[in-house]
């Protein structure tokens, strides 16, 4: 893998910080991501099992309008496009199933999906994820952002000590 393809993390961080600042100025809100997943998953479940979905009081706020008039869903669509521009510009695009060097494909499907379930659940419990709570809240010096960041890194370090083989 060619590491030099990438920018310095500090430069990427400045770009990300200016994007976040622009979002505050233009839209009056920071960045987000996990909300888009709830909107899409909620809409999908509503299409398959509308009667059951109607009983889920928590989901109703995500089903009020179409994903295409949801700010965070559109922003995440932009993320896909922007990341694609970046990866094509630097010729980094390659279809693959990325995993730790000692991990089987079957195991990777389980960690990717299982880890994803935990991410989805946790970001609803915390009212947002790394984008909405950690970055946005962090930049506002909101307590929420800093509590989330500290809890996330502490837990990641502890579990990494337990699961050494995951990404080796």
């Amino acid at each position, binding site marked *: 893998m060619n590491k030099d393809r990438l920018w310095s993390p500090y430069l990427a961080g400045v770009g990300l910080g200016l994007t976040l600042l622009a979002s505050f100025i233009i839209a009056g809100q920071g960045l987000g991501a996990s909300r888009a997943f709830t909107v899409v998953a909620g809409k999908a479940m509503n299409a398959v099992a509308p009667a059951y979905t109607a009983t889920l009081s928590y989901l109703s706020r995500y089903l009020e309008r179409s994903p295409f008039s949801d700010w965070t869903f559109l922003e995440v669509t932009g993320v896909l496009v922007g990341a694609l521009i970046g990866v094509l510009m630097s010729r980094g695009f390659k279809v693959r199933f990325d995993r730790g060097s000692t991990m089987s494909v079957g195991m990777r499907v389980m960690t990717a999906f299982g880890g*994803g379930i935990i991410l989805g659940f946790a970001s609803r419990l915390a009212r947002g994820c790394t984008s909405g709570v950690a970055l946005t809240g962090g930049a506002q010096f909101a307590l929420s952002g800093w509590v989330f960041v500290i809890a996330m890194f502490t837990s990641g370090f502890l579990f990494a000590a337990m699961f050494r083989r995951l990404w080796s």
Partner: protein
Amino acid sequence: MSAPFVLSDTVNLAAAVVIGVFFGFFLERGGMGNPHKLTGVFYRTDFAVPKIMFTAILVAATGLFLLSDLKVLDMSRVWIIPTFFWPQLVGGALFGLGYLVSGYCPGTAVAGLASGRLDALVTMAGIGSGTLLFSTLYPALAGFYNTSDMGTATLPELLHVNHWAMLALVYVFAGIMFYAMERHERRGHHPTVKKALHAVS
């Protein structure tokens, strides 16, 4: 006229796409679509995540306080992320586990997919399922979810310090952290250290 601007819905939604494009572009340029790089911080082999994250926080916070003090930006009209202390502490800790196991977080999984990583697509399906799991269990979780509501609590308010003093403190903290990370990464790549580590393991 002061920001945030009062935009029509259409313009605001178009802005969301453009803001997202920049967000995704900088994430990818920083290597944030790569699960090895994303989890490197937890194994102390690659500190790109905290470097990018804290640089972004410092840049955005400096701009936010500057524009707000200059009365260019009306902070009372910016959506402040509310604090629910215990759910966010537990949610953050669970999130750290999900991030380590999947190798992504919701935004970076999208960047991972854009670079051709199909495992990121599996994680995205997991995230959607996880939010539905939460929605299903919500009646049992509602009590905890709504506990320890601290509203728009901010660190400068809680610590009774000026926001510029708080910012200076975070600059110093980040500076020390970045210095330690650079040192650690350089030492990790030093051939003799690698050999010594190899001998130990």
